[in-house]
């Protein structure tokens, strides 16, 4: 009896041949292969596309990070010396990264410049504007509850008449982002599952259509691993090509969105440009497809192959 020579180069060559054979089989049925690939492509492109949009929204909201600040309006009777001291004290708080003191005169000056109501202000008997301390909360404490407790603490200071959080809506946006992000993760998971099922079903049909061939191959001594291999490579190709299709779909869709987005950014005189994450997704989508493809084929082959025995 002849024992197979277990030679690595030989083994790899065999795998390469099976790999190309499986690709050739997809090629010989272009229509049905293409339809499967497109379905997989869309299923993968959908969560990836939503993720790209979310990433862009995040990028925009991160630009406004500086805008999250608290303005402390001081009581009228707090002296400038007391206020400067409070400013440097506040800077020592761990929740606060930066503070800035603006006296009532500076406030008046700023208002004069910004409002253009200079002559009207001159007619006032005294300066109605309070002194302000602007504090910049620590980035790590931007969670709504943390910022809320900071707000309560500074408002309780005797020198402070009122504390006001600017851009409360930004925090809300962040929290909406987080919710949407989780939704996208769930959607991604469900669509990955559907890719798994699509590939599993495609492989099942491929196995059924090759039933008689499988019987013959088993009769001449093929192990289950040998019979399994071409189907796993079929899953491999469906996954990788589906991933590339997803990338193509996404790139095409984003290029359609790109010009109106630029237009919009220009109208808001913003520097914003769409982030495509192109290179990352070009690796990530086919890789995800590959894993799902091989896994789906594996499950399908495991379920259907063992029942096909020579008779």
């Amino acid at each position, binding site marked *: 009896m002849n024992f197979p020579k277990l030679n690595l180069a030989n083994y790899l060559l*065999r795998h390469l041949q099976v790999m190309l054979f499986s690709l050739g089989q997809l090629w010989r049925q272009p229509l049905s292969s293409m339809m499967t690939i497109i379905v997989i492509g869309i299923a993968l492109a959908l969560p990836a596309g939503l993720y790209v949009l979310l990433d862009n929204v995040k990028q925009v909201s991160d630009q406004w990070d500086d805008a999250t600040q608290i303005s402390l309006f001081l009581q009228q009777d707090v002296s400038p010396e007391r206020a400067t001291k409070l400013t440097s004290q506040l800077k020592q708080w761990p929740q606060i990264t930066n503070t800035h003191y603006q006296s009532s005169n500076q406030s008046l000056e700023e208002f004069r410049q910004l409002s253009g109501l200079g002559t009207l202000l001159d007619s006032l008997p005294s300066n109605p504007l309070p002194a302000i301390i602007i504090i910049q909360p620590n980035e790590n404490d931007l969670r709504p509850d943390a910022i809320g407790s900071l707000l309560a603490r500074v408002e309780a200071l005797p020198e402070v008449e009122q504390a006001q959080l600017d851009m409360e809506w930004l925090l809300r946006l962040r929290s909406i982002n987080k919710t949407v992000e989780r939704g996208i993760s769930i959607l991604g998971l469900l669509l990955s599952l559907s890719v798994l099922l699509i590939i599993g079903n495609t492989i099942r049909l491929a196995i059924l259509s090759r039933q008689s061939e499988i019987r013959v191959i088993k009769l001449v*001594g093929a192990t289950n691993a040998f019979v399994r291999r071409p189907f796993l490579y079929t899953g491999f190709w469906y996954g990788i090509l589906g991933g590339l299709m997803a990338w193509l779909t996404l790139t095409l869709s984003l290029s359609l969105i790109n010009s109106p987005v630029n237009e919009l950014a220009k109208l808001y005189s913003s520097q914003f440009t769409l982030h495509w994450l192109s290179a990352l997704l070009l690796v990530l989508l086919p890789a995800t497809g590959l894993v799902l493809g091989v896994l789906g084929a594996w499950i399908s082959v495991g379920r259907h192959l063992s029942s096909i025995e020579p008779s």
Partner: protein
Amino acid sequence: MIFFTDVYKRYSNRFEALSGLSFHINKGEMAFLTGHSGAGKSTLLKLIALIERSSHGQVLVNNQNLTRLPKRKIPYYRRQIGIVFQDHNLLHDRTVFDNVALPLIIAGENHREIGRRVRASLDKVGLLGKERSLPIALSGGEQQRVGIARAVVNRPPILLADEPTGNLDPELSRDIMSLFEQFNQVGTTVFIATHDLDLINTLPHRQITLDSGRLAEQR
């Protein structure tokens, strides 16, 4: 080489295909298996190819007890047997070369060795010029010879055939039989199920005849 000892094969519907069958075939022997349709010829061959297992009794082939052979070892066992089928069982989307190469590819033989042995095997059955053809383009006799080339390409010690001349005219059948004799002359044990009595009565080999699953006659 092939030993049957008190072998029974019962199917679930109580039908007994083989009952109390005992015989043996020596190493290097060539023998025929005959009998009417339904006498149990196919069942017997299925037991040797381990497509089915006996319900009772022992089957020993090439020093292996098939009653106890674990499932995962079946593929390796089958590589020691070349099987020729009545309906050829060729893969119709592969060339003649690829069909014949199949057992060697399965065994993980290297590329050069495969080319050499496939050509040697096709040469032996007289089809060397047809290696690039698809089976569908060949005549029935040629397809059968491709099946034989595939069965012998990895030089198995045992060659089984199930009605190999079933669809062929007498002259082609004689050619095919003499091909089997040639393999037998180089030491292969050959066991052929057939009902072509006119042909095999002209040949000097032993005949094992089955009747309703029992051994009817040996000569």
